């Protein structure tokens, strides 16, 4: 920062005409520090919701397979591009776009499982089922799929930001007293709550959910009592990827930024939230995603924004050193 001097003098010059009069935060009565912090908190909440949206599907798949699905970020990207294609072609209402994207996500999840995960489960003897090497080989295969998909999208669409029809963006401002949020915040909040609630219902009350939980807590045991583990795993991928794809199009429309490598950063943040939450606890991951969003936004109050990414990595390191089972790990059920 050579040659710059961010002097913080706040003389009251009559320049209010540059400010939007109708909104509290930027109204003529500045400075009001409380409003400033409230606005940063609101931004933190919406960042956290975005991370949570991604973390739910990520954690579900980890919970069942005990291995990271590196291609989850690409499912997110594919969801966003599928949504964009549907919007450009038919311009249907958002709910229809979401349904199509969810269907594409399910297909992507099943295909991903077939290509990257199934081949490593072809031996069903006990030694192979218990083998860490067999399981962890999917780290590489899912990473390979993610690279291939990302490059393919790049060849097909180019690596630049896609042009999203401006009227479809979820960013109309909503004023809440001193704080400004946008329409996408509300939609993302509702969708994330629905996902979390729906998933808890499925996991606790349906047969598919019961078998997912059984496979998640003891795959071999589940097999012994007659659960079709293969089909359960496919279901998990379908459900997890539906959520990933929905997150992709929502966040894509929220920021108006749809591009081939869009899944990378949210993938890392979701990974950190998952580790903090205890690897296999979905509510834990959601809470930690919110903590992460808040912390990043609050961190920008005190340090330059280039350091905000350090918050996530800092949390990751602190969690691994002091809470090796995650902040909400330990006592909880898997998934």
């Amino acid at each position: 920062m050579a040659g710059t001097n961010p002097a913080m003098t706040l003389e009251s010059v009559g320049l209010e005409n540059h400010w939007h009069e109708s909104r509290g935060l930027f109204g003529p009565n500045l400075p009001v520090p409380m409003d400033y912090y409230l606005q940063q908190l609101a931004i933190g909440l919406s960042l956290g919701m975005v991370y949570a949206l991604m973390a739910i599907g990520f954690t579900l798949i980890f919970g069942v397979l005990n291995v990271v699905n590196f291609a989850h970020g690409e499912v997110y990207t594919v969801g966003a591009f599928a949504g964009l294609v549907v919007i450009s072609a038919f311009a249907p209402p958002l709910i229809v776009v979401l349904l199509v994207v969810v269907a594409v996500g399910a297909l992507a999840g099943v295909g991903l499982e077939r290509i990257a995960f199934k081949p490593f489960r072809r031996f069903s003897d006990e030694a192979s089922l218990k083998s860490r090497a067999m399981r962890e080989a999917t780290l590489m295969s899912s990473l390979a799929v993610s690279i291939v998909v990302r490059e393919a999208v790049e060849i097909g669409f180019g690596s630049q930001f896609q042009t999203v029809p401006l009227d479809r963006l979820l960013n109309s401002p909503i004023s809440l007293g001193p704080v400004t949020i946008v329409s996408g915040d509300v939609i993302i909040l509702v969708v994330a709550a629905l996902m979390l609630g729906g998933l808890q219902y499925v996991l606790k009350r349906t047969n598919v959910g019961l078998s997912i939980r059984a496979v998640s807590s003891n795959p071999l045991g589940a097999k012994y009592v007659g659960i079709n583990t293969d089909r359960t795993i496919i279901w998990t991928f379908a459900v997890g990827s539906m959520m990933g794809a929905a997150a992709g199009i929502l966040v894509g429309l929220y920021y108006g930024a749809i591009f081939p490598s869009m899944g990378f950063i949210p993938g890392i943040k979701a990974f950190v939230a998952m580790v903090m939450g205890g690897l296999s606890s979905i509510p834990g991951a959601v809470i930690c995603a919110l903590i992460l969003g808040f912390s990043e936004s609050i961190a920008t109050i005190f340090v330059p924004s280039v350091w905000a990414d350090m918050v996530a990595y800092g949390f990751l390191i602190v969690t691994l050193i002091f809470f090796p089972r995650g902040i909400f790990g330990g006592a909880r059920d898997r998934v």
Partner: protein
Amino acid sequence: MNRRDLLIGAGLAALVASGGAALAQQPVVKIGYQLPLTGNTAQYGQDFKNAAEIALAKFNASGKPFKVEIVFEDSRSDAKEGIAIARKFVDDKQIVGVLGDFTSGVSMASAQVYKSAGMPQLSQTASHPDYAKISEWQFRNITTQAQEGPYNADWMADQGFKKIAVIAEQTDWGQTVVSNFADEVKTKGGEVVFSEFFNRGLADFRPIITKIAREKPDAIYTGFFYEDGAQFLKQMKQLGLTIPVYSTSAAYNQKLIELAGADAEGMHLTATFLPSNPAPQVQEFVAAWKEKTGQAEPGQFPAQAYDAVNIMLAALEKAWPEPTREKVRDALAATKDFPGVTGDTTFDADREPAKKLTKAVVKGGQFVAVSN
């Protein structure tokens, strides 16, 4: 048909045949072009490649005594890749000149290889002040922030803006945007009340925008490319901030307006290329670009690449016959008043181009030239 006609006919046929043979054996001169064709910055590299192919096709079709071939290599905007490509180009004895890379960082890393091997390098976009200082082999076809920063600071001072917030991307280039601008603001009696860097590709600018709002600046000066620019402008409007925004020629791209829509209205920036310029070479390039890419009008970067390639081709022609790397370098250094689409280019003793900057503002979904 009498005998005389027959004789003339045969002579003509022989002439055509020999001409054809000469065409087939026409010597080929090779130059290298390192640029990002995949990865996060591939859109820029693809634009350069399209621009280069337009310039090359025109050159090869113009009946010169030799043909030129451009070897494109994908650097992914990665310095390690850039150095590997530079070594490859240096080892190929047929290559007498190199264009690229895109970013200052990769260009400067590769420049070390070209410096020690003695290969002329002409970047269309590397604008870091230290790039051309590396050795006598480095040239560029872009104005640096040493020119743009003070120019913009003066422009903003003329508008009566005293308290200015500055944000720029966290890169070598972004650092020069801030430092060159801030120095001139101080000289003009203004004050930089806020200055911060962000990581390129940042999704959410709102925490920074909220911080800027707290400082109540008269105007914001920004060092970003069009994608970050579109995000910044959209999110600024979301938060209801209506402070004037000024930017560099790096943000000059029709895509900025496409991505940000009405939120881009009123943004000020400097440019060296406006597709609406009626000069014949500009209109020829714009037409060729539309035909080749099917896109809208070219932005500033492809225009710079187009000029860079043409300057290199002109240098090859000057170095002909038997062009060597030394002769091409000397020919580049002697470039004077080259009539390009980004204005006339002359390299000074430090191999820096002097270009005329145009002030522009986004108005009605277009970049429009303004006088102040």
